[in-house]
């Protein structure tokens, strides 16, 4: 693949409710900040990809209601429905097409304006599933139970993820929910859908984020700290929940394998310095770490217990606080990429990890990780 770099990246503060700001306000704030981060003006942006979802916005996103706010007036602007990591993939393709030297990718989400269970219920089949009330939490609880039973993962091991990630959030000024927790506190929080308890769940959030991608030629003119897309892939599995076993994460394994192959990575545990993954629920962190090949199948609980995934550990995971500490759903994956980019640049401030050369960002679409997108980012081409 020809070299493409992230040359600008920014996200808004993640909050429970940004009452004064609509979608477009959030998008403008993120776009402005990403341009400032890159030292660019809007006329240097060749095309724009926006990321959202019709149901979350409460309108059809293809009608480009945020086109002013993302600076796409008189430009080629299009939308990707789903997570920001997938939007960024499309942005990358547009740069690789040779038609555009730069692509702005922005994503926004206002969880505060809608009824989350009704919207995530709408992911499911209207003939066979919706009327039974299934939505994001219930489906994740089914997956958590299947995974934890299959491999003997304990609720305490999952609670450790909550303790770690909410603790990490104290050092991240944009995180919504830093919390001082203990395993006991997490374990004594009420069940929402067992085995998932309140403190195993991400919060509802508002936020937006933006990145600017550029060809090598343009990137070198824009910044002396480009963050290169070393490898990226996404892979999807069945729409109908339960067409395959829920503890089976072969779509993630496939996406990771392809991304590693592009990036020339043979042993991810040795060659990747930091991971930002989509931890909407605690059990997802060990499960996705297994799928990403950082340990064997079923080893995610022990990996978490070992302390290796702590901010000061061998493989820091979600040093930002992760989705557990703020989950503007569709921007959340783009936030993972931005966190990785800042860490690689050495610009992560108080939560900077020393010596991050290569980092992995991960996003999901659909219930229980129906689709996974894996990005390997690096400071060297």
């Amino acid at each position: 693949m020809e070299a493409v770099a992230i040359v600008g990246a920014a996200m808004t503060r993640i909050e429970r409710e940004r009452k004064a700001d609509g979608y477009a306000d959030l998008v403008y704030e993120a776009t402005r900040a990403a341009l400032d981060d890159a030292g660019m003006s809007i006329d240097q942006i060749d095309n724009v990809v926006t990321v959202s979802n019709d149901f979350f916005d409460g309108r059809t996103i293809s009608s480009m209601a945020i086109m002013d706010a993302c600076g796409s007036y008189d430009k080629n602007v299009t939308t990707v429905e789903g997570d920001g990591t997938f939007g960024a993939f499309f942005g990358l393709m547009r740069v690789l097409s040779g038609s555009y030297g730069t692509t702005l990718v922005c994503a926004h989400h206002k969880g505060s304006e809608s009824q989350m269970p009704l919207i995530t219920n709408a992911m499911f089949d209207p003939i066979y599933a919706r009327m039974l009330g299934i939505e994001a939490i219930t489906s994740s609880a089914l997956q958590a139970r299947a995974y934890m039973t299959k491999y003997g993962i304990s609720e305490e091991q999952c609670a450790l993820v909550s303790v770690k990630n909410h603790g990490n959030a104290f050092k991240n000024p944009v995180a919504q929910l830093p919390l001082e927790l203990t395993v006991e506190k997490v374990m004594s929080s009420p069940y929402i859908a067992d085995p998932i308890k309140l403190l195993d769940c991400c919060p509802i959030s508002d936020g937006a984020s933006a990145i600017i991608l550029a060809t090598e030629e343009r990137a070198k003119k824009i910044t002396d700290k480009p963050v290169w897309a070393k490898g990226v892939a996404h892979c999807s599995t069945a729409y109908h929940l339960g067409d395959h076993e829920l503890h089976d994460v072969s779509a993630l394994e496939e996406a990771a394998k392809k991304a590693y192959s592009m990036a020339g990575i043979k042993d991810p545990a040795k060659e990747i310095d930091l991971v930002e993954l989509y931890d909407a629920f605690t059990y997802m962190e060990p499960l996705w770490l297994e799928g990403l090949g950082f340990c064997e199948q079923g080893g995610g609980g022990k990996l978490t217990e070992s302390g290796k995934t702590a901010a000061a550990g061998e493989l820091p995971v979600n040093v930002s606080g992760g989705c557990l500490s703020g989950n503007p759903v569709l921007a959340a994956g783009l936030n993972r990429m931005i966190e990785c980019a800042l860490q690689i640049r050495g610009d992560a401030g108080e939560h900077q990890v020393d010596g991050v050369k290569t980092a992995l960002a991960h996003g999901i679409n659909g219930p229980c990780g129906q689709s996974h997108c894996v990005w390997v980012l690096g400071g060297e081409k």
Partner: protein
Amino acid sequence: MAEEKKDLITLESGEMAQPFNWTAGVYGSKFLTELRDNKKFVGVKCPKCGKVYVPPRRVCGPCFEELTELVPVSDEGELITFTVVSFGFVDPATGAQKAVPYGYAAIMLDGSDTVLLHYVNETDPAKIKIGARVKAVFEEQRTGSLLDIKHFELI
């Protein structure tokens, strides 16, 4: 932008809805008709890999083969995974809220290779186990919907 919260206006969408008439298709209609009229389950078998899908559908995803052979499957099966749900869910179609807690499960009927999602009539997690045997309990009045199954009971 900084404004006092009291000065901010929000507009409610109210009770407006987006009504749809989703077709269940030929196979889906057969499946729902069998549930309604005969309290029986129908699946469809892939000619290539032999996998039986319940509810039946047109295409086997992994094989990309068209499916034509409808096959009967049992009203009993195995509990693959479950949860006890403690938060209320309002059915967007009816506005009715399901009483909590309720059991929710993925069930693989005997003769099927995919799971069906439905309620299970047990709310004590200690009394439910993955691998438990379950059987469908039907409503007296049936309309041709997944809700014609009242729930699955542990047997």
